[in-house]
């Protein structure tokens, strides 16, 4: 790995015996002890380890929760509450699991932005990146399935919205939808298969994580300079340190700090990341006022709802679905969309500005996803009152007013003449959330499909350091520290 020969030497009779039959200790030693790791990794690089902890936490707590959970429409809601009330430390296990999902996504988004910034998706790490996107997709699927299990109002109606999206796919959509739901509508059969799949997918994630780590250990870690660690013996020694103890302790510190934030949510605000409506048992007949997904899916939800127009024969709903899935699909092609040979944005001053714009756009998309699309952000003018009535010739007529007093006087006067009249509000023009979401969606796709491909061909990157070793020394000499 990294052209690095194994330095593992079995010491005892047993390990020698084992090593010649199944060199699993050697694999672990080479991967997590002696593995040469660039010495300049910053804290943004600790999120891989944090994510491993998140996955293990979710699987362990999830297995225990599954022991007590009842996957029926009549029993699910009460069984989750029973876990919190009567299972010893059930409240802890359940809160870790539900907040753990949020923490998992928080970490994965930071991990992905890190990869975007330092160009970790570029050769020779394309497969590593693609496997990461696969994990992200599986995570979203798992989170969605898991959110349905408590069988609250948001569980049910959220599931309705998402399965409805699949129904928008032409020709096969309805069949897939019925197959997913196990019938014509969401019911007991849906809950049971979602539970089954929710238990399955995390192990698929774990499998892809193993491939992800494998694909990481072939080329070795990227690093903030984007300059590869040298392969020759002397260069490798100068550029890297063994993973253990250098990165076990650094990752360990970051993991514990992350756990402090995690624990703050679990113990002091366990429900703040969820929606209150999900503590109301699912009722198909009562639809919540605003159906919103969990926070980590909001940016994609905003993209879905931003498409309010048809293009040719494709209607807005299908376009929205295409845009939403496209927002993730585009990540698969990113290694070939970014044409720059320079990996790290430290040395790409122009691209860096666009990158920060992309981060802001993603956060704002989340804001749009949470808001009502029709709510104004910047009102232009004030709402007017329109009185509709039937005029003397029997035609529909309207009269517009600023003041309510004048409008109501006019209406009452018409009413007293025996004419039907009513007042309605004419909304003033405004820059609304849907408009912002459209602009941001445009930027989201432009970043990947236009900016990165063109910029790589046209920009003038700064000089990269000759090696990690040189970069570290330069960094140490208090040269203007490149902001990252």
């Amino acid at each position: 790995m990294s052209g690095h020969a194994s330095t593992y030497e079995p010491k005892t009779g047993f390990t020698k015996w084992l090593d010649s039959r199944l060199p699993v200790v050697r694999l672990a030693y080479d991967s997590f002890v002696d593995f040469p790791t660039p010495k300049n990794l910053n804290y943004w690089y600790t999120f891989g380890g944090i994510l491993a902890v998140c996955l293990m936490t979710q699987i362990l707590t999830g297995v225990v929760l599954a022991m007590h959970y009842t996957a029926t429409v009549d029993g699910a809601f009460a069984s989750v509450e029973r876990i919190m009330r009567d299972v010893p430390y059930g409240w802890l296990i359940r809160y870790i699991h539900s907040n753990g999902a949020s923490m998992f996504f928080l970490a994965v988004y930071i991990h992905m932005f890190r990869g975007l910034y330092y160009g970790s998706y570029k050769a020779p790490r394309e497969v590593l990146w693609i496997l990461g996107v696969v994990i992200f997709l599986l995570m979203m699927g798992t989170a969605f399935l898991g959110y349905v299990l408590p069988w609250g109002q948001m569980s049910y109606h959220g599931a309705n919205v998402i399965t409805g999206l699949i129904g928008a796919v032409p020709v096969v959509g309805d069949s897939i939808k019925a197959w997913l739901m196990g019938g014509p509508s969401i019911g007991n059969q849906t809950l049971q298969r979602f539970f089954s799949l929710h238990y399955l997918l995390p192990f698929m994630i774990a499998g892809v994580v193993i491939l992800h780590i494998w694909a990481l250990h072939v080329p070795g870690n990227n690093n903030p300079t984007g300059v590869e660690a040298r392969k020759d013996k002397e260069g490798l020694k100068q550029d890297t340190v063994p993973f253990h103890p250098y990165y076990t302790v650094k990752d360990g510190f970051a993991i514990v700090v992350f756990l402090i934030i995690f624990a703050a949510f679990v113990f002091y605000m366990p429900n703040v990341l969820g929606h209150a409506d999900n503590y109301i048992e699912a009722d198909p007949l009562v639809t919540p006022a605003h159906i919103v997904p969990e926070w980590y899916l909001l940016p994609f939800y905003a993209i879905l709802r931003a498409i309010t127009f048809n293009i040719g024969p494709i209607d807005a709903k299908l376009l929205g679905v295409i845009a939403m899935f496209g927002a993730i699909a585009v990540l698969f092609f990113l290694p070939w969309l970014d044409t720059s040979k320079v990996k790290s944005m430290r040395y790409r001053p122009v691209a860096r500005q666009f990158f920060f714009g992309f981060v802001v756009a993603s956060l704002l998309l989340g804001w749009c996803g949470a808001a009502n699309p029709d709510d104004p952000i910047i009102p232009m003018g004030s709402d007017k009152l329109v009185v509709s009535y039937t005029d003397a010739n029997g035609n529909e007529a309207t009269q517009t007013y600023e003041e309510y007093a004048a409008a109501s006087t006019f209406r009452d006067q018409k009413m007293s003449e025996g004419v039907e009249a009513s007042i309605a509000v004419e909304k003033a023009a405004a820059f609304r959330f849907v408009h912002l979401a459209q602009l941001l969606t445009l930027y989201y796709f432009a970043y990947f499909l236009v900016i990165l491909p063109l910029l790589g061909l046209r920009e003038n990157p700064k000089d990269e350091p000759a090696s990690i070793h040189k970069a570290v020394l330069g960094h140490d000499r208090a040269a203007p520290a490149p902001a990252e």
Partner: protein
Amino acid sequence: MKFLRFISAGLGAAAIAATAQAAGGSLHAHEPEGGWAFEGPVGELDMASVQRGYQVYREVCAACHSMRLLSYRNLGEPGGPFYDPEYPNANNNPLVKSFAAQDEILSTEPNDVGDYDFRPARTSDPFKSPYPNDAAARAANGGALPPDLSVITKARHGGASYIYSLISGYPSEDVFSTREIPAEETPAAESEAEAEGEGAEAVDGGEMESAEAAAPAGPTSETVLKVSEIDSSHYDFSKYKGELVQPVGQYYNPYMAGDVSAQWRGDPRKTPPGGFLAMPPQLSDGRVSYLDGTEATVEQMSIDIANFLQWAGEPKQSQRKSTGLAVMIYLLIFAVLLWFSFHRIWRNVKH
């Protein structure tokens, strides 16, 4: 410093989550004066208040509202309002046993001849429900289903503050007036009770039917309230010039999630906040006689019932906070140790 940056990134994500909580057009719930004792990382429930709240629940709320997820034994378990260290097993707690025994419930097990008898509840039984099922509850309440109160503080934005604000936030009598409807005026527009965007308390299909059924006969009078005259120290209602027509069997409350625009006679651009619910104001001074001698004002009872429901929504909350403190201390010490280990291990490596 670098790592401060990633914490701020985390907070950014949390801020997005917070915006997801944006509620509809009801007033923001507010705390009672002096706040809640249970707030904050070390706040504990005011158990005397929770005990009084249980009395209010039994004597007032329990007439219509079930609490299916609670059992009598919960009252005497650690963290519960009647926990007594002398009886670590709540099932032996005489107070809890007497609370249970005061309720007659339909046994869940058949007797010798296969019939189901009424019997006094045991500590292991769930709280007695006022109605055998949802259909009976609707039938007895004009079509509206009184929501189960087990997790109500978790199921509403604002939690205990919402309960407190709602229960004590009905407009006072003096803003209401009853008016005869002139014969030629059609009440059809008014009878269409709005039903959009409400939770379990919402006016549902059943309620609509009963309202519509009454329409052909035509009510001869209507209850109207002047919103601008509502006296509140928390919100300025004076800007809502106009009248709200209260549908029959419905009660206006500014803290209720909903939409009153269909019932609003006034500027439609300034529709008052809040909604209608089928529950009339429940509390009046002296409605219960507190066993501990506390004066039963509406304010006091509202605080007490909110405290009780706060406990009921999460009986393990005090355990959660005390465990949390130990975990936090442990993690902080661990982090400090790792920080120094990190610096020691890396001391000879430029990075």
